[in-house]
């Protein structure tokens, strides 16, 4: 049945509509991605950390049985391996959680299921979301479907790559310093990091608690909007969720006419690849064609945000990762004569080098005598950075900048130089520090010399709760400025990777 065979190509909203109309079963909608694109791509890309045909069949059956079909009825979603799921292992791609199955679903997983969606597997990631390339995984790296020699970005590289090659129309990741927006850019898909406190963190294994936010991957702006609408809103189990109802992304009727977008060109005067800047220019022109207005100004260089981030995030991580000790769950070092040895040996053997590096850094930043110089200074700098964004949004409705200073880099290119890896987040980290939403928007492929075409992307940042505006602008870019309304996704075709 070709309708079922081609279902994986559909946008999530269109797929859900067909399932609701009875044209497709939930199982067909879910399996289409596995039978077609995954069979072709997965062995090389390795986007999936945990696949389980029986578990997804059970998930599909549960969705099929639901008395009232939801807005994402039958839509398969690959979720990052740091979101707790009762039907798949949740290991954060770390040996320390080997085989761990949580007894509860994360709130966002619950809401996905309530909306009719089906968890189709767990996406590969950098261990505990620490990394920008999905190379630091205990399951081995994920590769970029556009060029298998290159990284998909990270830390949510698995779901990003899977959405790009067609396993599923939606993916969930987490974004602590750009871990959704940067891999979205590298894989040529939309990547939404919502306002801090809009998506529940309950059941998201914590990395940097004050920075973490669950994020959404999609091939179309409208699909990202649909996922946001299903997931966003207060959660009584997460005291950092905002109490007010989430903004209604569907009620954005205005398109981008009259929208002012900030253009902080000082940020890409150096250190940014030419193709990335060309993508920016094209996107800006496209928005202008749709009636938006460019507002140039200088903005605080991203280096300060990187410096701030690597103190705040590591301090919180050193604390959040203290619980992995071999007592209650996960890996335990077999040779532990006493409980002290249990801790040290379990943690030393269970955590990979990058995680250990960040735990040490964070422990140092919080330790007696250094707290004021490092952690406290960073928290004050964070206030300053927030104010910079607030000031900028007095002058514009959103800002445009790169999501990454480079196109996807090669595997192994940065693993030996932690600081260089950290600097690849230079454009994304600020939003996490400020708590504001950001959206990566793909803007076509950059043809190259002796390499396959690689995705280009821009990042849009807006003030708190500006998701409707960001998605509308994303939609405008998706259709090259022709029609800036959501809800017409069927008319656009995604720029698929081609098999090399």
């Amino acid at each position, binding site marked *: 049945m070709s309708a079922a065979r081609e279902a994986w190509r559909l946008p999530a909203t269109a797929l859900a509509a067909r399932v609701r109309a009875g044209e497709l079963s939930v199982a067909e909608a879910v399996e289409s991605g596995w039978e077609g694109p995954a069979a072709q791509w997965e062995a090389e890309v390795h986007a999936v950390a945990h696949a389980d045909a029986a578990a997804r069949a059970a998930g599909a059956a549960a969705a099929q049985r639901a008395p009232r079909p939801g807005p994402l009825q039958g839509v398969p979603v690959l979720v990052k391996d740091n979101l707790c799921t009762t039907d798949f292992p949740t290991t954060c791609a770390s040996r320390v959680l080997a085989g761990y199955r949580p007894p509860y679903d994360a709130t966002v997983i619950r809401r996905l299921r309530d909306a009719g969606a089906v968890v189709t597997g767990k996406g590969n990631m950098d261990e505990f979301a620490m990394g920008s390339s999905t190379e630091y995984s205990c399951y081995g790296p994920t590769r970029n479907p556009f060029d298998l020699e290159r990284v998909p970005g990270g830390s949510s590289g698995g779901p990003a790559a899977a959405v790009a090659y067609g396993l599923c129309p939606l993916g969930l990741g987490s974004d602590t310093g750009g871990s959704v927006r940067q891999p979205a850019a590298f894989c040529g898909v939309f990547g939404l990091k919502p306002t801090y406190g809009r998506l529940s963190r309950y059941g998201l294994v914590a990395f940097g608690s004050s920075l973490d936010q669950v994020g959404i991957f999609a091939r179309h702006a409208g699909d990202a909007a649909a996922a946001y609408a299903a997931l966003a809103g207060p959660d009584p189990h997460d005291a950092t969720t905002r109490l007010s109802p989430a903004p209604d992304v569907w009620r954005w009727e205005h398109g981008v006419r009259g929208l002012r977008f900030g253009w902080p060109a000082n940020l890409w005067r150096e250190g940014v690849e030419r193709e990335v800047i060309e993508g920016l220019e094209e996107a800006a022109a496209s928005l202008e064609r749709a009636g938006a207005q460019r507002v140039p100004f200088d903005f605080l260089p991203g280096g300060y945000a990187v*410096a701030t981030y690597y103190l705040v995030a590591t301090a919180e991580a050193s604390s959040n990762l203290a619980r992995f000790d071999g007592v209650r769950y996960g890996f335990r070092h077999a040779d532990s004569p006493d409980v002290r040895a*249990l801790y040290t040996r379990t943690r030393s053997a269970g955590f990979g080098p990058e995680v250990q590096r960040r735990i040490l850094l964070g422990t140092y930043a919080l330790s007696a005598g250094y707290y004021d110089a490092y952690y406290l200074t960073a928290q004050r700098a*964070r206030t300053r950075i927030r104010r910079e964004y607030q000031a900028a949004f007095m002058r514009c409705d959103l800002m445009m900048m790169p999501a990454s200073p480079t196109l996807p880099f090669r595997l192994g290119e940065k693993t030996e130089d932690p600081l260089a890896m950290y600097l690849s987040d230079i454009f994304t980290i600020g939003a996490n520090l400020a708590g504001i939403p950001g959206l990566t928007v793909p803007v076509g492929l950059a043809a190259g010399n002796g390499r396959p075409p690689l995705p280009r992307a821009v990042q849009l940042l807006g003030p708190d709760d500006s998701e409707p505006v960001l998605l509308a602008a994303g939609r405008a870019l998706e259709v090259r400025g022709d029609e800036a309304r959501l809800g017409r996704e069927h008319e656009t075709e995604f720029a698929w990777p081609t098999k090399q």
Partner: protein
Amino acid sequence: MSISRDDVRKIAELARLEIAEDRIERMARELSAVLDYAASLGQLDLQGCEPTAFAPAEAPLREDGLDERRLTPEMALAAAPEAEQGFFLVPPIVENLNP
């Protein structure tokens, strides 16, 4: 270098990590590189900037009731590396001081 080899040993002990002797030098260098980079914050004018430690959220408190998240002992112990008769088992606790 901001971090000495002794610092690395000390914080590793605090974090319950064991860094092999032949990795300590390199770790000290890598951590120092990040901290030296972080020193750039010294150039930022932080006059009047109170530390941000919290998401600017309203503060919902929980009413004092029981909820449905409670686990049975079997579920609580399901992922335990070792458990018996309702208890988690760990190697002997020799530090007899719980601070």
